[in-house]
Structures are given as structure tokens and as C-alpha cells.
């Protein structure tokens, strides 16, 4: 009878592990101090702020004509939505009129931006989950290829690929160049066709299903309590979309569906975003079919800093960005600069859910969950 040796270890030791600040799966500079028992996370301390530039103080020192181009730099993956939130807040206080064509162009860019942003999310998230998914980088490269096509559209419109400065108080700064609508139609046709390929590639892959289903569940109650928004909120079974529930910039003129999933896990959030791709394409086609003629701004182009003065008052403008509710709370004192401006960053609130859902997960799940939240650290840290 051989001697049986039992290891006198029950995994009761705790290990503190730094995930980040520079970690490939963090999608930016984010440090999660994980307390581990074996492979299981039992405690999380999230450290943010590495990208803080104090946008809110900056906004108090910059005129209404200057700040929109800086607003792009909060959520730099979806610059169009933060620009829009800022100018909408100023327009609400000043009751500045925005011509119909400008409103449609804002919606058009917002939806193209959603497609570009979701492409980046899908690619990076699947790459995080690694080699099991078609060699890891395959889908990333596919998604980036498609995103480039959308960025080409932005480039031919404003001359920039990442930070646009497209919006101004009272309208937009650029009108569509010749041939742009044709290029836009062929781009969305191509992306629509490729979406099916991605879904087939991912959903037929048992590794993808295993790593996403039942992982990182956010309950309906927790979702609202934290204030997470966008695809995360809708993935947790709450049927709310600012574009439909509180329409702005003529969203009421368009037909689209708001996807809702009830599981609240990574897979539900993935499904919501995949449907959003298609709904955005639907909206884009409706705009291209019915884009009204007319001016693109109710105010002249920017000539001086004092050009836009906003009367005393306050407003809260909320925009449904790709990551959720991008809010700009603006307090004006009658001069050409805001008295106080608060960014309600969608990523900030979405990320705040992590300490509540990570305990109990394995370290590998942390990566999948973090990617499914889709944080952009420019917007978390502002």
C-alpha cells in the first residue's frame, strides 16, 4: 500500500494582484487591485484618474465657441456624441434654433459614430478574450477594417479621423461634400453584410458562448441604482433609450427598434450592441433618403470668442452615445463662458458597476466583463 500524501492547503491564502494600470485588457489606463483566493476574485478596488485633465475646470475658462472641439476629447472613441451634448446644453439655455438639416446631420453623424465605436468595442473585446476566438486578432482586424471605412467618411467631411469639431452652437460646421452620400450608402451596405459574418464566427464558437453566457450578471435593480446606461442597461432588461424616450435632434422622425435583453450578462450586452449596429444602419438610410435642404447652422461661422453669449440659466442635455447617457449639465451666467459645467460620462457610471459584480468571478472573467462594459478612459477620467 503506497503512502498517500495530502497537501495541507485549502486555498485560504489571499493574494493581492494589480491588474493595470497598464494592462492590455484595460482598454486604457485603469488599475484594478484584485484580492484573490486562488483564481477567484474576492475583492476589488478600482483606481481611475490616470487620464484626468479636469475638463470641467477647462470648460469654465473656454468660450462656448472654443469648447466643442475640446469636448471631443472626453470620449475620444465617440467624439460626435460628447460634442453634441455640450452644444445642445448651450442651445437649450439660449433657446438657439437649430435648422432641420443640421439636426439630421447630427443624427447621421451620431449613428455613424455608434457603428464606428461598436466596431472598436467588438474587435478589442474579442481580442481580450484571446486565442479561442479565431486566433484572437482575426476579428479585431476585421472590425478595425470596417471602422476605417466610417472614419474615411468623417475625414472627407471634416478633415479629421478621431476628433472632429463638427458641432457648433446653433448647428454644424460642415455640409456634406459631393459624392459623400453615395460613399456612405456603400459603406453601410458593406458593414451590414459583414455583421452576419461576425455573428456566425462568434456564436458558432463554443468558447465564445462559454466565456460570455452567465458571466458578469448585472441585475435590473443594480443597473438603475448605479446609473449604468446604454447597451448595459438594455442588456439588463430595462427598455430605455434616450433617442426614443426623450427624443432630441429630431430622432422622433425616424423608425428604429430598441433592443432589450433580459439576461444581464456579457452575452446579453453583446446581443444588444449587435442589434444596435443594424438599427443605426436603418436610421442612416432613412436620413440619406430624406435629408432636407437648407442652412446647416442658425448662426454664422466662428469669428470671435464673444460671438456666442448664453443668457443666465441652466440646462441638462443628455445624448444616447454608443456607451450610454452622455450628459452635460451647464450653468450659464450670461457671459461667453459657462459658470459651471458637469460631464456625466457614460463610461464613468458604467465602470462603477465593476466593484459590485466582479467578486466571485475568476480572473479570466474580469477581462471578459471589463470588455463588455466598453469603458473609454478619456470619458471616465475626463
Amino acid at each position, binding site marked *: 500500500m503506497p503512502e498517500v500524501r495530502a497537501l495541507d492547503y485549502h486555498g485560504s491564502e489571499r493574494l493581492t494582484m494589480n491588474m493595470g494600470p497598464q494592462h492590455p485588457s484595460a482598454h486604457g489606463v485603469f488599475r484594478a487591485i484584485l484580492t484573490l483566493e486562488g483564481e477567484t476574485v474576492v475583492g476589488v478596488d478600482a483606481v481611475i484618474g490616470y487620464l484626468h485633465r479636469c475638463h470641467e*475646470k477647462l470648460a469654465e475658462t473656454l468660450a462656448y465657441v472654443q469648447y466643442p472641439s475640446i469636448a471631443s476629447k472626453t470620449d475620444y472613441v465617440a467624439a460626435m456624441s460628447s460634442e453634441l451634448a455640450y452644444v445642445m446644453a448651450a442651445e437649450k439655455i439660449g433657446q438657439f434654433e437649430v435648422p432641420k438639416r443640421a439636426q439630421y446631420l447630427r443624427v447621421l453623424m451620431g449613428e455613424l459614430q455608434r457603428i464606428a465605436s461598436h466596431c472598436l468595442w467588438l474587435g478589442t473585446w474579442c481580442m481580450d478574450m484571446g486565442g479561442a476566438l479565431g486566433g484572437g486578432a482575426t476579428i479585431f482586424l476585421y472590425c478595425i477594417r470596417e471602422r476605417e471605412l466610417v472614419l474615411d467618411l468623417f475625414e472627407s467631411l471634416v478633415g479629421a479621423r478621431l476628433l472632429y469639431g463638427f458641432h457648433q452652437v446653433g448647428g454644424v460646421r460642415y455640409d456634406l461634400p459631393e459624392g459623400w452620400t453615395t460613399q456612405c450608402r456603400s459603406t453601410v451596405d458593406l458593414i451590414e453584410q459583414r455583421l452576419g459574418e461576425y455573428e456566425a464566427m462568434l456564436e458558432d464558437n463554443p468558447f465564445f458562448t462559454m466565456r460570455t453566457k452567465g458571466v458578469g450578471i448585472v441585475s435590473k*435593480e443594480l443597473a438603475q441604482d448605479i446609473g449604468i446606461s446604454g447597451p448595459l442597461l438594455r442588456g439588463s432588461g430595462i427598455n430605455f433609450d434616450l433617442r426614443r424616450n426623450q427624443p432630441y435632434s429630431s430622432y422622433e422622425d425616424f423608425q428604429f427598434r430598441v433592443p432589450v435583453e433580459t439576461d444581464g450578462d456579457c452575452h446579453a450586452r453583446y446581443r444588444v450592441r449587435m442589434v444596435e449596429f443594424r438599427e443605426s444602419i436603418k436610421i442612416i438610410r432613412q436620413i440619406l433618403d430624406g435629408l432636407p435642404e437648407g442652412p446647416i447652422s442658425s448662426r454664422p461661422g466662428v469669428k470671435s470668442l464673444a460671438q456666442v453669449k448664453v443668457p443666465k440659466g441652466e440646462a441638462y442635455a443628455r445624448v444616447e452615445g454608443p456607451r450610454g447617457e452622455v450628459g452635460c449639465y451647464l450653468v450659464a451666467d450670461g457671459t461667453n463662458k459657462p459658470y459651471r459645467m458637469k460631464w456625466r460620462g457614460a463610461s*464613468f457610471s458604467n465602470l462603477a458597476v465593476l466593484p459590485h459584480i466582479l467578486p466571485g468571478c475568476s480572473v479570466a472573467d474580469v477581462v471578459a466583463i471589463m470588455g463588455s462594459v466598453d469603458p473609454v478612459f478619456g470619458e471616465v477620467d475626463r
Partner: protein
Amino acid sequence: MTVDRARELFGSVAGVTVTAGIASVVAQVAPEHWEGAARFAKDTLGCAFFSFLTAIDWKADGLEIVAWVDNLDANLSIQLRTKLGAGQIACASLTGVYRGADWMERECYDMFGVQFAGHPGLRRILLADDWEGHPLLKSYAVDTPHPPYR
């Protein structure tokens, strides 16, 4: 829950004055009733969604805390406001009502120095732990030097 009904109900709560403003219901709350008003908004008016919390520095008049919560089913928004008073930095924490207030209040402390009583871990969130001052106060100049950086 209609807007009128919400206004009527909220107006009858102690320490709350319903005023006109940018949300469906704007409630000016006395600081000592801050947490109770938030609880009423959540439990009775169904505002389960916590959007944001921040402060405004009104210079000589002191700080004002502003929070925004929504009832997503009824499309009802409530803006809660409370004036802390000149020179006052103490405010009740809403973390017991909304868990989302945790990070928002930490940011508010970081930027304005507001001491939220009852917050489970009030420390800086965006700035480094050894940062001096609270940058969004009007008394904090934009070009305040911060050695060794400038």
C-alpha cells in the same frame, strides 16, 4: 406617476420645496432632509435610476449640491438641490439610497472638498491622494502651481 402627481407628493415632504426648473420636478431640499428626500424620490416616486451628483460653487453663497434621478418607466426626471450654506462643506451621503452615489460623491469630494457624512470610503478618485486643494472651487486658480510638475 404623472409629473403633476409627483410635484404634489414631493411638495408635501418635510424640508422640500418644489420649484420650476429644467427637470420635470425640481426639489429644493433643506440640507438636513437631503437623504430623506432622495429616499422619497426613490421609494415613493419610483426614481430608481441615479444619473449624476455634483456641486456648484456659488462663491460667497457657498456650495450647492445637485443630483439628478429618473423614473425610467414614467419618463420622470427629478433634480434634487440643496444649499449647504456659506463656508459649509458638510452634507449627508446618498450612498445608503443609491449605490451609484459612491463614485459621484468621491468625485464631488475630490473636486469641491464636500464632506459626505456616512460615505463608506470618502477619498479622492480622479486626482492623486497627495493632491492639495479642490480644483473646481472658484477660489482655486487655473494656474495654481503643483510641484514638482509646475
